[in-house]
């Protein structure tokens, strides 16, 4: 076994995902403790240019037409071939809709351990994970065997993993990918007629705490007053109160506004992932233990309905004066 730390690079629609930079940053930390290099595994079709901005030492490039779309079957077969040839100390996967299809499956196949929900590599070189919706932290030591790590955002800024280009690029012969059991039949693009919340400077976000569809109007009023846009966490979107284009978090968008004012969002990990790029987060929630307060700059522990009216008044007054 080498001491090298591997990163399975994620990209979507021709762009490297933030999680890949974050994993690279974590891998660098871990490599320092383990004394190896940071190696990226870049799979896809015509993707070699994607490596250039990552702070990797080396890249293993596997290109094949069947790797163009994300088929967990194709990617798993290829990765298993990579690991058969190389012997990493640890491998980072994103705890994302892509990486999660692979990491635990490969761990089972290779009979090696996997540490889930890693947010940070500690100063001691331990894998710090956040579980139970962010209410519990664990520090774990790598196993003797190759250890897989499933990474969530929040502990590193994407910039920390930027750099490159990598010193070395090794083209990897992709194994036979015939008879794939998983195929993408078609993509269903998100509705692009709506505003792109990832580009907005001011976002007012609503969660389960908004309680009813009618109350969305109240939040809209606040957003209008601040010249911002309304977005939401999963429960609100599931209820159909706002379109999917306004979903923030794991299967929605990652946002980076100057102000993220969250109303009645408790802050499940899937949601928090999408807001780490925000400059200032203000959270309003009636539960003092809500995890959103762990990432917010300002916290307000009240019933949001008691706050909105006086807040609207004060803001109006401030704008008037």
């Amino acid at each position: 076994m080498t001491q090298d730390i591997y990163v399975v690079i994620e990209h979507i629609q021709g762009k490297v995902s933030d999680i890949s930079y974050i994993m690279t940053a974590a891998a660098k930390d871990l490599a320092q403790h383990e004394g190896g290099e940071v190696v990226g595994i870049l799979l896809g079709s015509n993707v070699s240019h994607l490596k250039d901005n990552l702070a990797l030492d080396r890249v293993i490039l596997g290109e094949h037409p069947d790797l163009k779309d994300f088929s967990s079957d194709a990617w798993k077969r290829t990765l298993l071939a990579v690991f058969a040839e190389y012997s990493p100390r640890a491998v980072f996967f994103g705890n994302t809709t892509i990486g999660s299809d692979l990491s635990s499956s490969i761990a089972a196949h290779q009979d090696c351990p996997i540490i889930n929900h890693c947010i940070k590599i500690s100063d001691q070189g331990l894998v710090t994970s956040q579980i139970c919706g962010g209410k519990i932290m664990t520090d774990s030591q790598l196993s003797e065997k190759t250890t897989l790590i499933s990474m969530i955002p929040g502990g590193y800024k994407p910039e920390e993993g930027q750099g490159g280009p990598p010193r070395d690029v090794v083209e990897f012969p992709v194994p036979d990918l015939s008879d794939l059991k998983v195929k993408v039949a078609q993509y269903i693009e998100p509705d692009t007629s709506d505003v792109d919340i990832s580009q907005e400077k001011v976002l007012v976000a609503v969660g389960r705490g908004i309680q009813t569809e009618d109350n969305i109007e109240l939040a809209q009023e606040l957003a209008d007053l601040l010249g911002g846009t309304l977005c939401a966490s999963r429960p609100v979107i599931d209820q159909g109160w706002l379109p999917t284009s306004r979903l923030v978090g794991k299967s929605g968008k990652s946002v980076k506004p100057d102000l993220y004012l969250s109303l009645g969002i408790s802050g499940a990990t899937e949601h928090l992932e999408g807001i780490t790029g925000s400059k200032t987060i203000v959270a309003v929630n009636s539960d003092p233990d809500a995890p959103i307060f762990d990432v917010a700059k300002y916290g307000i522990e009240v019933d949001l309905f008691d706050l909105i009216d006086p807040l609207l008044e004060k803001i109006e007054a401030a704008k008037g004066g």
Partner: protein
Amino acid sequence: MPEYVEYWGIPHQWGSPSILVYSVMFLAAGILLVRFFLKARLWWKAGRSESRWDRIPTRIWYLIKYGIIQARVLRQSYPGVMHVAIAWSFFILFLGTALATIHSHFFRFLSGSVFSFYKLALDLATILFLVGAVLAIYRRYVTKPERLTYQPQFTWTLVLLVLIVLGGITTESLRLAVEQPVNAAWSPAGWLLARGFLATGASTEVLTNLHLYVWLVHLLIVATTILTLPVGSLFHVLTGPLNIFFAELERPTGTLPPTPTTADGAPIYVSKLNQLTWKQILNGDACTECGRCQDACPAHGAGYILNPKELILGIRSLMDRVKSGQAGYDLPLLDNPGLSQEALWACTTCGACITECPVLIEHIDTIVELRRDLVIEGSIDGELQDALTNLGRYGNSFGQSPRKRAQWTEGLEQPVKDATREKVEYLWYVGDYASYYPSLAELTRKTAAVFQKAGIDFGVMFKGENNAGNDVRRVGEEGLFEMLVEKNIKAMERCDYQAIVTTDPHTYNTLLNEYPFPEKRPILHYSELLAQLIEEGRIQFSNPLNFRVTYHDPCYLGRYNGIYEQPRKVIQATGCELVEMPRTRDRALCCGAGGGRIWMDEGNVKERASESRIREAAELDKVDYFIIACPKDYTMFQDAVKTTGFEESLKVLDLIDLVDKAI
């Protein structure tokens, strides 16, 4: 000496007039009875059986009180006077005809002064009727209140009744004009009309002939009225009293019936016409379409689709379809005019419809039974589903940890006893809202502080308390209600206490009326306890308040359980001047939160009941405080004063706020 003369002026050469009259009348009555039987038979044929034959004397008393005296009808002055004028006059006129029959065939007594009084009574009844008829005509064709049904059969009924009475007075006056008896003045209206006939200078013969024609027409109209009774709006004179006679006597309104079961014990969830009981179907045919329920209904007033009148009439129209052979008895109840899921869910179970109904229709039992089926089918809105899931899981609708139920006690100077561990005199059943709702915590602490100041030995059950289930039951989640009852009774059995006190009228209602306590102990609403403490001098006020206030009767305290005086006593004891709203006591408008509405999506609302209520209070002269005695009311009306813009001029205060300020 004047005496009643049978068939005055009816020529005998046609045969005995009595034979004509009796054959016509018996024929009409016979046909009526057959038609009525055919209709009534369907109630039992379509409906499930249900015994309503107990307590016959009470049932007869109800018949007198609500059917004859018409106490419910008289709750409202204009329509009350209008209806009793018509109904009572007909009772008298009918009695008059009956007495005449007795006189003719059995016992001759209508002579001399008895006869004169008899004539006077009938004449006055005629005048009374005419007053009622004029009121009815004015109402139906001029003021046209929204709640009435505007269909030809109501006009038809009114025309028939007016013609019957006019026919009667005309024949009477023609007789008077011809006979000019010594006691003519005892029929003032008849005599007045008679003098009119005389003034025309018509001969005796003309008048006698005219009398004959009018009499014949009168007879035919009466027969027609009897014949058409089952299809016209007068049918209620039969079904109304029946419905009153078979009213629910076993249960107070605050006690819902359990889910009915089949003979072999399988639960019946009502979704089809033939799953209703015969009594519930009778409700449909008994409805007089007076619209009082519609007027009183907070959901209807707020602009929801629910209309209790249309809901009950929906049952009637389904039965009509069955009768006409268009459908079988297993007709689905919902998705029909008046009967929809949306309508069922809009009900706050406030009980106003039941309180107003002149024929004692039981709307809420039917609504809850239908809701039970929707719950079993899982046809509930997302918010209600969340609330019920939380209630099942945590025992509160907020989805909060049971360990946080008594978190409000933090910050109290004196700790609150844990009644599951220590003996207490009063077990305080705090309830969900007072326990968990963030803006109520301060009020709950204030209540505790007042209890402490009054030296009451009390405790709460901390995490042992679950939602009492009043509204869970009214939502139709009977299984969850039963589960909550089991848990709560178990928890309470662990406590050593003398009485239960609660600030929540909903909790109060279900504990009082629905909990199968193995050992009954007093259950008090805090208004009762406060009134008692004030009376005993354990609470004394050193700082009389001099506020002008109004008081909102909570549905489950007032209408359901008749607690009207104690809260008012407490208010007055604090030195406040109480100004009543127009809709007060059992007429109080619901805040809109009851029956589980507080857990549901508000939907499309025109004007919230709570806002309408606040506007009502705001119209009172110089009233600064709106006093409530229910935690849910506090949240509802706090919102309503904000949304209506009366936040500055009208402050919502709990009863306990007044007591606390005045101590």
